[in-house]
């Protein structure tokens, strides 16, 4: 009888402590995550727009945008507009796909947390 009752105690189907070993480390950093998020809802954003949006410095944004660009997550174009140099960024297909996967992983982690509670 007690065995039957014990069987009713369900083992959690979702692992309690999800260790995100396969999270994209490039995206999993606040400023780079912000860059990817902002570009996800805009075709192109300028350097200044990103800087204002993410409230960061020129140097900081440059460094992180460069890392994303080197990994082909974002693409960059430079041009002259009204005699001023402009730099714009956009997500690449690879970047958009990986960003979507990253968000899905975050979602899974949050769902596992809700299952635990």
């Amino acid at each position, binding site marked *: 009888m007690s065995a039957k009752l014990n069987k009713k105690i369900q083992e959690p189907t979702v692992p309690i402590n999800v260790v995100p070993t396969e999270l994209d480390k490039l995206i999993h950093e606040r400023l780079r995550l912000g860059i990817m998020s902002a570009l996800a809802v805009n075709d192109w954003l300028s350097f200044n*727009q990103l800087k204002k949006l993410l409230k960061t410095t020129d140097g900081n944004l440059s460094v992180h945008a460069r890392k994303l660009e080197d990994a082909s997550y974002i693409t960059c174009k430079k041009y002259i507009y009204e005699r001023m140099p402009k730099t714009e960024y956009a997500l690449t297909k690879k970047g958009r796909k990986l960003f979507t996967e990253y968000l899905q992983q975050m979602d899974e982690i949050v769902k596992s947390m809700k299952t635990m509670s």
Partner: protein
Amino acid sequence: MIIPLQKIEKPKEPDEHQIKALHNLAFVRETMENAGAFTTVPGWGMVTIGFSAMVTSFITIFITNPMIWMSIWILEAIIAIGIGLTSICFKNNKLGLTILHGIGLRFMINLCIPIFAAVPLSFVLWKHNLTFHMPDVWLLLYGTSIITAGSYSLRLVLIMGCSFFLLGCIGMLFPMIPKDALMFFGFGVLHCLFGMLILWQQYEKKDEGHECKTE
């Protein structure tokens, strides 16, 4: 028989990865909202549209001829579209964006399609002497256009679309409500209200140091 009590396990506290995931998702959402705001109609543009609609509704109270009534509101719609486009272009120019570019273009297309549907629908209603429900149809279609375009913009814009849609439904369900009152409240008050909410949201964030949204 003694039934053993089952041990009730305390829910485990979320670990740091889970807490970070929650924060990351909230940050992503906030960033997307702020970044998407580059395509909204500025708050002052909406307030201006609202005031012009209020003035129009005061004028049309005294109009009994449906054809003249409809013509005045069509003229008001053209003026409102002009105000909206001017304010979007003015704002986007400051940011170095163009309305015919990527997400801005998608925003405009989604906004315009249901509005264009109102043209043949209004014509048919007028032709069959069914102009009584025209304000309800206009509110419904305008609400639909805001909802579809709102997916490229602030959540507040989405809520605004739902408000128009709901008002259109109320107009259809309760025909005793004067149509001029519906138009005043819908195209007048709602535009002013949401325009002021967008302005308030932006200025509040400016005080907190969020300089990303500009008018």
